[in-house]
């Protein structure tokens, strides 16, 4: 036990002497936590639209001003022909083109039906889909307005209608940042802690100091603990700063659920992820190798954790991978506890799984690390 204390003293001294590293650990995550949520927003605004109005009638003008008034769209230009408008799409100046055919107003009144043409730059499918949906909504609204001009409503409604009322729980402001910030915090803490741990351990291998350790009576588990604990502390610290300072002060996120629960989960999670870092470092000889292997894992973990895209939407095989990914669980836990106030009973399964991971990775690392080859 004393040996462990000596080891820990050494580790902490080495870490804190490295000023650049310290700056990296603390400043970069904080900065990114600030920038990231600002940028990450799926809501569509400022969709650039070009209108080709062949009709130039009061109706067409009304429609156009309705579109502009909605706030979703920027009228980038009016074009004389579809070809002209299309060039704007080619240049990425416009996302959407609306073509109003000649005699639109007249035909609508006389024939009682008309057709509008929309072309969308669908490279970003979501944008196109949503943009199309918004504009359709506006057109439907406009349609109702037109209809009401010509048909008198009797009583309440001539035909029975089902009204839908919707309400939102837990995030009534529909603030996407509430959803993203905890997730990004998880991502950053994971990245920093496990990467640093893995790199640091492999560094000893690369430089050769590990031989000096191997030739002493230091026990395997003491060495591993000596590498785990300092980075565990760092991980907790970064998380704390991120949660209480950045998340609270900048975004106004105050955890609804038990903070103790959250930190308890963080503790187990860090042990698991650091264990993974150590495991990787026992398989690698150089820092460069570790860099790439960890990068590989991190990329996959992050993308498959539900941070950006929901895991339920994935095809079955991908969903399985997501369920085998430790990050997924913390991602869910942090969102559940912070935003919904979930309790221990709700995340029991997550705890069990994370304990399992922690055990798996660390045991594997201890077994695989050989003092004698």
């Amino acid at each position: 036990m004393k040996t462990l204390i000596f080891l820990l003293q050494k580790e902490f001294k080495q870490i804190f002497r490295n000023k650049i590293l310290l700056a990296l650990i603390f400043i970069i995550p904080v900065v990114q936590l600030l920038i990231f949520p600002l940028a990450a927003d799926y809501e569509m605004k400022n969709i650039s639209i070009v209108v080709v109005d062949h009709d130039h009638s009061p109706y067409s003008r009304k429609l156009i001003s309705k579109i502009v008034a909605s706030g979703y769209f920027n009228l980038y230009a009016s074009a004389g022909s579809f070809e002209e408008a299309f060039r704007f799409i080619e240049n990425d100046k416009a996302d959407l083109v609306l073509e109003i055919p000649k005699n639109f107003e007249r035909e609508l009144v006389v024939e009682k039906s008309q057709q509008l043409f929309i072309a969308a730059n669908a490279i970003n499918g979501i944008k196109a889909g949503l943009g199309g949906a918004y504009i359709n909504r506006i057109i439907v609204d406009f349609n109702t307005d037109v209809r009401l001009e010509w048909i008198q409503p009797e009583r309440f409604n001539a035909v029975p209608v089902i009204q839908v009322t919707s309400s939102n729980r837990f995030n009534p402001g529909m603030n996407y940042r509430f959803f993203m910030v905890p997730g990004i915090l998880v991502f950053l803490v994971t990245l920093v802690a496990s990467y640093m741990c893995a790199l640091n351990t492999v560094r000893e291998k690369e430089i050769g100091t590990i031989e000096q350790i191997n030739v002493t009576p230091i026990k395997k588990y003491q060495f591993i603990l000596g590498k785990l604990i300092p980075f565990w502390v760092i991980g907790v610290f970064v998380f704390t700063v991120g949660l209480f300072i950045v998340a609270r002060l900048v975004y106004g996120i105050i955890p609804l659920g038990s903070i103790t629960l959250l930190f308890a989960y963080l503790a187990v999670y860090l042990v698991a992820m650091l264990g993974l870092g150590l495991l990787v470092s026992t398989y690698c000889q150089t820092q460069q190798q570790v860099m790439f292997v960890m990068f590989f894992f991190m990329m996959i973990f992050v993308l498959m954790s539900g941070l950006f895209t929901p895991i339920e939407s994935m095809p079955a095989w991908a969903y399985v991978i997501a369920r085998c990914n430790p990050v997924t669980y913390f991602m869910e836990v942090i969102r559940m506890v912070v935003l919904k106030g979930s309790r221990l009973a709700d995340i029991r399964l997550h705890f069990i799984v994370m304990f399992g991971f922690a055990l798996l990775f660390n045991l594997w690392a201890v077994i695989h690390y050989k003092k004698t080859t």
Partner: protein
Amino acid sequence: MFRDRKTLLILFGLPIAQILLFGFALTNEIKNSRIVVCDYAKCGISRQLTEKFAANNNFIVEEALLSHHQIEDAFRSGRIKLAVVFPLDFEDDYQHLNQAHVQLIADATDPNTANMLTAYATNIIMEYQNLSLPYQINTETRMIYNPELKGAINFVPGVMALVLMLVCVMMTSASIVREKEYGTMEVLLVSPLNPFMLIISKAIPYLLLSLVNLIVIILLSITLLGVPVNGSLLLLFLISILFIITALSLGLLISNVAQTQQTAILVSLIGLMVPTILFTGFTFPLENMPVVLQWLANIVPAKWYYTIVKSIMIKGLGFGAIWKETLVLAVMTCLLLMISFKKFKVRLE
């Protein structure tokens, strides 16, 4: 470098894994969402609607009579994401008041999901009503470049940019710093080798490697994901080479500043990865971001490259459309190289 099997494995495996993931697994659509239908009304309409929900493969329907409190608990445990409630007097209202209410309660933790689910559910209810009225305006929508709305079309160029950038930067910065750490740098500098040549010799293997990566990505995209290359392949390659050089120059700059490999790696990774993912524009649209961030995005070389790739691969345009972006990349590269060489020379003294 080629003896390092693990690294090589990753360098090739990574782009493949990413393409597969991005192409198949990652999507912004909402599918397989568990919802609960609380049918207090139990009338013909509510039953038909419930069936419609169940039939829709966006939803996995569970039928239960839950109170609002219970619904909240269910949200909390992550069991369901949306609740559809048909109140007791639904049928009554429908017959006598010509207006009945359905309540949708969504878990807005993920606002996006909540929005989409609410929209889907509302759509289903609206479609069910299917009123056909006079004075109908129909719209015909054409999706250009990506009629099937495949997510891959958007992601693949982004992944190309991301992987090339990150891998190149990490590789050069780490490998050069490594020589510094080991002291072998001094040996090389003392030799008659021109430092310029030295750098070039370090860069070329990575250039080749990245090109191979690029080819693999493009092949996979075409075959597995059905992402076309509508424009000139040659142009694509030429510009890619330019971009790779840009990334390598950035790695060079980092290697000048970092003292240890650890620092170089951490800076490249943590400092670059997130901004590159964000500001390239393939995860979240740039137009949504605060203007300040949009300006910042212009510093990220990957953003320009992403635009170029989209233009060539998806839109099938030629050099005339992308000369501006290419110029920006070229200028960035020159700047990076100049700064690196200046710093390099200073270090030598």
